[in-house]
Structure formats: structure tokens, C-alpha cells
């Protein structure tokens, strides 16, 4: 039976593992890789698109950049031949730098784990009534576990020389995924505040 408490990290190609560990280990590694990618990207955005507020921990101000808007306006009260029939209005407005940068949300979206497991031992046990009560659900009283090792092949032509290797193939595919909801919400909030506010004449009771 696999020694689940063994924390010895020395690589051993012939060590026995539970089937859960064999399947979950590459997936957990991919999940950690995903988290590292996200962390790196978040740190990059914070360092380049925001400035830290002085005196306040974990509080950032967006770096604003200026953009120009030009629009042609036609005066319908004038003739096309008139000089000021068409005027070009130009205004400047500020946009957070964060809204312009093409942020890629790169993440692992497909993992294929391929191995052949040699079952070396099996174990089974019965759940006690106490165990069933703790879960609060109806479960099979009898549980089973497979233990094994990754089956490898042997190479070598000569009967006197043999190399044993275990093979575990993990194929990973990463691609840009839609931005997380949190980031979309921040972009949406900033975008809604981009519009320049219109100057209106304050109405008085005498108007």
C-alpha cells in the first residue's frame, strides 16, 4: 500500500502512488502554472498602468492619457457655400492607460495526461456509521483504492543491458481566454467615465 505520509522528495521512478495522486499531480501543476501566469500579468498591469497612492496601502490611481476627438458639425441654417457651413470641433478627453493596452488573458485551456498505470496493489475498507454521519450523505459503505506506478518500457537490445524508464506524457495547450469578470468590470467602470461632461446653462426662475 502506498505510504501517504511519506514526504521524501527524492525522485523514485518505481515508487507506488495512489491513482488519485497520479492523475491529480499533473493537473495541480498546471493549475499552479496558471496561477503564476495570472499573477505575473496582474503585477505587470499594476506596475505599468497604475501608480500607488502615497500613504495608502493597496490603493492605486490609474495613469491617465490624453486623447483628442474631432467631429464635423454642419450648420443647417447656412448654405453649403458659406464659409462656416461646416466646422470641425475638437476636444480633448482623458482615458485610463489601462483601457488602451491590449491585455491578453493567457491561460491553460486544455491538458491531456497520458500514462499507463501498472496496478501494484489495491485496498478496500468499509466506512463506519460515524463516517457516514459526518458527510451527511448516503454513500457506499465500501470504498476502494487503486495503487500503482507509471508503467514504463525497457530499452536495450542486449540481454545484459536494460534501461527502465517510466513515461508520463502531459500535453498542455494555452490560449487567450476572455478577460476575467473583475477586469471587465474595471474596464467598464473606467469606460463609462470617459465621456466628457456637457456644460449646461443653469436655469433660473427667470428663464
Amino acid at each position, binding site marked *: 500500500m502506498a505510504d501517504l505520509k511519506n514526504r521524501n522528495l527524492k525522485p523514485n521512478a518505481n515508487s507506488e502512488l495512489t491513482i488519485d495522486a497520479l492523475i491529480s499531480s499533473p493537473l495541480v501543476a498546471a493549475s499552479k502554472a496558471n496561477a503564476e501566469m495570472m499573477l*505575473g500579468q496582474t503585477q505587470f498591469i499594476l506596475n505599468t498602468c497604475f501608480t500607488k497612492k502615497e500613504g495608502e496601502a493597496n490603493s492605486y490611481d490609474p495613469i491617465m492619457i490624453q486623447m483628442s476627438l474631432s467631429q464635423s458639425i454642419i450648420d443647417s441654417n447656412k448654405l453649403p457655400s458659406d464659409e462656416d457651413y461646416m466646422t470641425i470641433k475638437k476636444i480633448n478627453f482623458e482615458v485610463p492607460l489601462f483601457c488602451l493596452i491590449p491585455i491578453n488573458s493567457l491561460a491553460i485551456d486544455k491538458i491531456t495526461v497520458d500514462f499507463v498505470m501498472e496496478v501494484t496493489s489495491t485496498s478496500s475498507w468499509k466506512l463506519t456509521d460515524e463516517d457516514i454521519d459526518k458527510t451527511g450523505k448516503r454513500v457506499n459503505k465500501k470504498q476502494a483504492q487503486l495503487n500503482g506506478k507509471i508503467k514504463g518500457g525497457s530499452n536495450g537490445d542486449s540481454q545484459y543491458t536494460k534501461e527502465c524508464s517510466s513515461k508520463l506524457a502531459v500535453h498542455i495547450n494555452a490560449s487567450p481566454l476572455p478577460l476575467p469578470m473583475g477586469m471587465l468590470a474595471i474596464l467598464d467602470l473606467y469606460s463609462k467615465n470617459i465621456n466628457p461632461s456637457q456644460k449646461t446653462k443653469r436655469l433660473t426662475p427667470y428663464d
Partner: protein
Amino acid sequence: MINKDSTIPCPVCKTPIPFDAQSLLMGVSFSCPSCSASVGLSNQSRPIVEKTMTELETFKKNK
């Protein structure tokens, strides 16, 4: 090539205007498909956007 995922709402009519950051740096202006207002990058902000885009490319290569 304009990335349709990069849009900015038109300050006039709020219609999303697709744009490309690299083209903005080269001085290209993008028009609103609804009201034809044209948006472009201001000259004073060009250095900071250029610096950020360079850092982004470096980050992608090093990652």
C-alpha cells in the same frame, strides 16, 4: 489589424469604437461607426503609451 476586442466608447454617442494601440501610436485616428467622430492619441501622451507598449512586448517575450 484592428483587434475588435479593443474598443473605446465614443464620447459623443457611446458607440464602441474599435481601435488598435499600435496604429494609435503611429498617428492613426479611428472613427465612430455611428456618429463619425474621430478619436486619436494626443501628442503629449504618445511617449507614455509607447513606453508601455514596449514594456508589454518585453514582458511577453520574457514570460
